């Protein structure tokens, strides 16, 4: 069974600073995807970034980038130039590629507060 662990329940960062959110996962699969989702107070789940396990290059999306360490099963999210609108709950998620059920396995989330 796959598991996703986020060990930081809460984090705080000053506006314009950089913050890194941690995520580790456990799986015996070789083909999978990893995601970071953002959930602001509106509760909408918003995809921030995704990483294919077969790609060695770390994904980037504007101010968001990941550090994907496949051997260590680590998938951290770096937010650069933090903005007030980045305040949200962030969930790390795993999905097995090609399985019978493409269900997302979520971590418990990290609540990020961006301070002015």
């Amino acid at each position, binding site marked *: 069974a796959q598991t996703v662990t986020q060990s930081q329940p809460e984090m705080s960062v000053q506006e314009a600073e950089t913050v890194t959110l941690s995520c580790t996962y456990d799986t015996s699969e070789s083909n999978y995807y990893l995601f970071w989702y953002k959930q602001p107070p509106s509760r909408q789940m918003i995809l921030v970034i995704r990483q294919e396990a077969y790609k060695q290059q770390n994904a980037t999306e504007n101010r968001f980038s990941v550090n994907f360490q496949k051997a260590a099963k680590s998938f951290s999210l770096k937010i650069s130039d933090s903005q007030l609108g980045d305040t949200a709950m962030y969930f790390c998620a795993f*999905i097995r590629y090609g399985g019978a059920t493409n269900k997302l396995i979520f971590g418990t989330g990290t609540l990020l507060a961006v301070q002015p």
Partner: protein
Amino acid sequence: DARVTQTPRDKVTEMGQEVTMRCQPILGHNTVFWYRQTMMQGLELLAYFRNRAPLDDSGMPKDRFSAEMPDATLATLKIQPSEPRDSAVYFCASGLVGGREQFFGPGTRLTVL
């Protein structure tokens, strides 16, 4: 701008009442997921449909919950009878078979008194 829609956005009901939540997946998507979010359990899968057929509902309490897709544009999740422990946010998501991404609706916040 294609998006998943869910109704109602919020629902308050009394214990024992029937609750029906509806989801309209993105046109052309052939997979639909129902997730439940609670403080204690986090986000967990309740049911999964592929081409309208239920493939996995192992996460759903069978005695009171039921999920259906009457047609490709509508997915429903029913709870009968509802209990206070069912209070949660219920998300619907849709995607494509073999696709990498699931697109989430805004969720239905259910409160059972």
